[in-house]
């Protein structure tokens, strides 16, 4: 988690956005002291609801920059993710994919690496797993995300750049970050010895790669990079456009001119 927070801090600084405008609803707890240092508002919500909560923050006050940090993106809150993408809700979703639930040691999450022989200490699937993982980036892209990228805890500079870029991007953006928490992988031989070395040896940067080709498979290298970027009207812009068209002068645009 720490390399990601560092990259987040760097990204905020680089983006030029005032930290007090940034709200982070999350289903992962941050350290309170870290939030203090970052100067943001932080909401530790309940399992799966960070995107929905963030939607409320954004529509309640369109001036906020809302960045849901989510560990368990595809299970309990999967529907919110899919629909926020469809609406192009102005959120930057940072999906922390640690192959496992961070807090509840040993449960298999659906974006977990497939048939990873190293991950044999999990309690929810003690005999490893045979279920296919989600390609979250591909899903985000097909739901309409305007920005998708994936980095690992090794690529902190690239991640910070991506965060800075996406913070200034209007619309639904998703950055997937691969970051097995070292505390929770102590039983795993290879990763334990050198986490960063694992990423160094097992990842390859392919900017602009089609998201459909970036599934995480156990026998292939993990593809990282900035995959897609496009322009599309956000939910609030579409809302103002449509209602302005129908209601004319009776309608007050939401969130003023900037949406």
């Amino acid at each position, binding site marked *: 988690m720490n390399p990601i927070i560092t990259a987040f801090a760097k990204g905020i600084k680089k983006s030029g956005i005032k930290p*007090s*405008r940034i*709200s982070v*609803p999350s289903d992962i*707890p*941050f350290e*309170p002291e870290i*939030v*203090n240092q970052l*100067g*943001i*508002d*932080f*909401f*530790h*919500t*309940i399992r*799966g*609801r960070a995107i*929905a*909560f*963030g*939607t*409320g*923050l*954004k*529509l*309640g*006050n369109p*001036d*906020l920059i809302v960045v849901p940090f989510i560990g368990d993106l595809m299970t309990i809150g999967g*529907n*919110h993710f*899919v*629909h926020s993408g469809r609406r192009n809700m102005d959120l930057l979703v940072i999906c922390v994919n640690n192959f496992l639930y961070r807090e509840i040691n040993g449960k298999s999450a659906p974006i977990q690496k497939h048939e990873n022989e190293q991950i044999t200490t999990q309690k929810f699937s003690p005999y490893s797993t045979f279920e296919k993982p989600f390609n979250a980036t591909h899903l985000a892209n097909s739901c309409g995300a305007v920005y998708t990228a994936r980095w690992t805890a090794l690529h902190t500079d690239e991640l910070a750049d991506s965060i800075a870029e996406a913070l200034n991007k209007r619309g639904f953006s998703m950055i997937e970050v691969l970051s097995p928490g070292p505390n929770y992988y102590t039983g795993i031989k290879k990763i334990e010895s050198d986490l960063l070395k694992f990423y160094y040896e097992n990842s390859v940067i392919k900017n602009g790669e089609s998201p459909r080709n970036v599934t995480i498979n156990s026998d292939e290298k993990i593809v990282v990079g900035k995959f897609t970027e496009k322009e599309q009207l956000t939910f609030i812009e579409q*809302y103002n456009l449509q*209602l302005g068209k129908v*209601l004319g002068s*009776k*309608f*007050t645009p*939401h969130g003023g001119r900037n949406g």
Partner: protein
Amino acid sequence: MKAEPKNVNTGIYYIDGDVAAGQGALAAGCRFIGGYPITPSTKAAETFAEIAPKAGAVFIQMEDELASIATIIGASYAGVKTMTITSGPGYSLMMETIGFGAMLEAPFVILNVQRGGPSTGSPTKTGQADMMQARWGSHGDYEIIAIAPESPQEMFDYAIKAFNLAEKYRCPVMIMADECVGHMTEKVVIPKADTIELATRKFYKGPKDKYLPFKPDKDLIPPMAKAGDGCNLYITGDTHNEKGYPISSQNLKTKTHKSTTRRLIDKIKLNADKIIELKEEGIEDADIIVVSYGISSRVAVKGIELAREKGIKVGSLRLITVWPFPDKKIAELAKNIKAFVIPEINYGQVVFDVERCAHGEANVVLIPHGGAGVHHPEDISDAIEYADRENKKIEKIIEWKTKLEKLIFEKGFKLKE
């Protein structure tokens, strides 16, 4: 503070309860509703969706009720008045997040237009069987406020009151309507904006770096800061201290549980007298008191009339606020009367609290109803008559058999006959 004229569509209307509730929400200054359509509450959301954009408010159809409730709590922390609208199945889905909202002390309103249950039940028919769910539905200890309107006019009036209470006490407020009230069409008067009194949320005004999100004032309610105010909020559903930080050490956790969770309860309990609204009628010299709420109190009026024609001294206590429960009032009344009679469209929910507060001083007669309809006034007058006749103390809730139940269960009534 008075209501803003742009939010109030002043006039005399002939509309149903759902429409009135939508109008009431806007008049109360609601700026955001996230909802998911469900019969019989849909029209309230439809109404708001139509009138809100003209007044600068937003309606969004979310993907499900889980999202609806989470999104309004988010918007509440963005500083605006928020509400969601639902019925039984959607209400059940919201439960986890309602507890989260209570823990965060976010002000928000839920309109539950109750229908017959359990499960899908009777979507287009009435019920009052979510009353205990409103009170206890989410896990853990917390308190909420629940109001039961009985007419379209009250759907408007009490929508405003619900927002006022939510903003004032920073807690979830439920409008526990039912299908009958929601779909009933009657005259509704929407008054002028300057006659509608609104409560405002207590926002924090001190130095930003000194802000403690959960440090209460003397009234047990902490002032609130919005997201984006620069107060560096740390808000969590974990047991937290005044600064909002989760507490991990076991000793401290016990201490903060006392000061935080206890306060969630106390801020409602200790202010109960200010919150509770009751309507009393003819209870001064009554032998029997009918305790009712929502649509059942409309039906009870006729039942009481029939009983009075037979010379029985019967009064009516209508619970406009059902939760917090008027413990003191019921205990006081129990000392001087023979029995309470409680008609409700379920197999016994609010009756348990009446029995609890009666402390064995008066008999407690429940007139149950399986839902998908309302009581027959004769059943109510029959139960009153029985309660008046019964001279010995019966130490349990007496379940009155309605005519329909007798017909079905005792005589084996079949439709063909």
